[in-house]
């Protein structure tokens, strides 16, 4: 394209943006004295800004279009990191040191935010089993999260059951619900499955909201005990300690989840899941039990949501149905898709991205969600495969002679 064409296109884009941002940036209604202020200066600023941004972006793209076949610089560095053991070991060391010392370097607030992010990492990795590996689009994942949280809250409220007993119990109850949901939807796929799971998520939330006698309705359950530290109850006074403890607890769960999912992914079961995602009929014709494979994926995904649910209840010490809306499911699903389906580092990065960005965008005030949405759109336009796409295991047969 010639520079003139670039300029023309950029002008078109800037006009379009001026039109789009008109109600937001130009019209200002003052409700106190019933006046409307027209801020035309803003419009000119937007126009000039988008014009230059678009122009330089086009120039930049034009220059890189020649070597499109070659992997981008980012991909190359990533590959380099993956393949070189020294660099990856060093990075891992730095990462471990950073995560371990985090609560001692940063404030309680930051630690709390990071704990939440880590919880979403686990949720993302759990949903990744269902969506990323087995290819079952689940829009009601939050239901299992709620099941876990309410299991602990109710057990604690009525019977005083402690956190460590409730953790496996909550996971089990959630897994049971996973199978319960799995059985009727075994025949469904894609859009249909998405709708059914969406309905399931809403059913769980509505039951929690309306069955007051059992679940305490919209007012929720409060005074849930925090986890005990080797049998020692942490008293309310030491909340900073409790937060630090919670951080390490979640970190431990994250490590365990990564370990587990990584092993599963490269196992007989993991391969069966991926095959199921790729082609259901061929998968059955290869001797894979479709029903069982789907149910294990559902149950395992739910198990993780249940565990995080228990942790969530223990962390906030108060839960109500408002924490388990469809929005949560959507965010967890976005973590998986944005991070890269099936990719563990991708999901981890996606979780941090989606949890930390809105948190740190608070300074932007009203524009927070706008910036959040825009960054998601930009992400999907430029990296539809996710932040870090899934890399298949490679096998090397140079020296070895096969036995069979």
């Amino acid at each position, binding site marked *: 394209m010639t520079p003139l064409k670039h300029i023309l296109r950029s002008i078109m884009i800037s006009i379009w943006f001026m039109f789009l941002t008109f109600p937001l940036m130009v019209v200002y209604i003052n409700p106190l004295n019933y006046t409307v202020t027209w801020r035309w200066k803003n419009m000119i600023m937007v126009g000039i800004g988008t014009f230059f941004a678009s122009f330089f972006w086009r120039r930049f793209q034009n220059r890189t279009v020649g070597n499109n076949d070659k992997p981008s610089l980012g991909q190359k560095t990533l590959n380099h990191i993956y393949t070189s053991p020294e660099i990856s070991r060093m990075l891992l060391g730095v990462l471990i040191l950073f995560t371990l010392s985090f609560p001692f370097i940063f404030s309680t607030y930051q630690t709390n935010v990071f704990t939440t992010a880590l919880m979403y990492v686990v949720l993302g990795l759990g949903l990744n089993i269902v969506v990323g590996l087995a290819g079952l689009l689940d829009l009601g994942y939050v239901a299992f999260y709620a099941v876990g949280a309410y299991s602990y809250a109710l057990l604690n409220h009525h019977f005083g059951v402690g956190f460590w007993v409730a953790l496996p119990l909550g996971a089990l109850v959630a897994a049971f619900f996973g199978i319960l949901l799995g059985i009727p939807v075994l025949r469904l796929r894609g859009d249909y499955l998405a709708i059914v799971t969406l309905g399931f998520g809403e059913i769980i939330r509505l039951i929690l909201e309306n069955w007051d006698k059992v679940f305490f309705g919209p007012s929720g359950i409060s005074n849930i005990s925090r986890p005990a530290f080797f049998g020692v109850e942490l008293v309310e006074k030491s909340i900073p300690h409790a937060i630090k403890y919670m951080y390490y607890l979640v970190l431990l769960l994250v490590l365990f989840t990564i370990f*587990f999912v990584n*092993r*599963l992914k490269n*196992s*007989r*079961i*993991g*391969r*069966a899941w*991926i*095959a199921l995602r*790729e*082609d259901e*009929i*061929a*998968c*059955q*014709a*290869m*001797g*894979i*039990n*479709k029903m069982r494979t789907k149910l*294990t994926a559902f149950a*395992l995904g739910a198990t993780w949501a249940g565990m995080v649910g228990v942790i969530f209840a223990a962390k906030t010490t108060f839960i109500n149905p408002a924490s388990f809306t469809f929005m949560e499911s959507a965010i967890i699903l976005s973590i998986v898709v944005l991070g890269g389906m099936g990719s563990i580092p991708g999901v981890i990065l996606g979780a941090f991205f989606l949890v930390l960005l809105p948190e740190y965008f608070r300074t932007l005030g009203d524009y927070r969600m706008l910036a959040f949405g825009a960054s998601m759109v930009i992400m999907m336009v430029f990296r539809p495969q996710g932040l870090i796409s899934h890399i*298949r*295991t*490679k*096998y090397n*047969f140079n020296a070895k002679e*096969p*036995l*069979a």
Partner: protein
Amino acid sequence: MNVILDVKNLTMDFGGVRALNRLDLDIRAGEIVALIGPNGAGKTTFFNCITGIYNPTGGDILVTPPQKKTVRVNGVKPHIVTRMGLARTFQNIRLFQNMTVLENIMIGRHCRTQSEILGALIRGPKTRAEEEHIVHYSYALLKKIGLERQVNEFAKNLPYGDQRRLEIARAMATDPFLLLLDEPAAGLNPQETTDLVDLIHKIRTEDKISILLIEHDMKLVMTLSDRIFVMDYGKKIAQGTPGEIRNNPVVIKAYLGEDSDA
């Protein structure tokens, strides 16, 4: 020789349409049998009935695995049929596109291996040995079909002919005694077709696997098969050796249409 697949009176209705009409067919151990017929004759429906994808309306499908008792497989789930030793390929290639060539074959080993979630988590000696077996077995199969250089390539990136071969290898990985090939030569060039004929011969003689194939390439059918079954409108209209089928007036009529002057 003993019959390994015996189909009697097989009928399949889809609503009011009778796709298979009282079909009889048998395959003996070590045979290469072809199933031919015009488009829409019901050949693929027949495959789907045998492999458990459809539950036939009537009739019997009797399978006799080597050194085992005869089993009726009507309406048995596809994965169990595969476990019994019937493996198939598909008319429109159904590979796992986003998995590597080796992984595709490794999936074929699924029904012959056992490790479960706990095994995958702990990865004890048994699981590791099994995993090693899967990898080596699959690689040996790849070598056999001549795709060992593309081990880590995605299945979708293979040329069409190689994809057909890979699908056959994947079916072989399930240790079948009867291989069902649905139009294995469709879309292949003459050279690839010749290679395919060699491969099928090799599978029969070296691996002692019987083969039932659907095919439209008459040259391939005539050179390869011991016996041929001909179908039209869901019915068997003829059966016999290639020589007999070639000169059968009923078959010629089904393929070329009836001469209106006669």
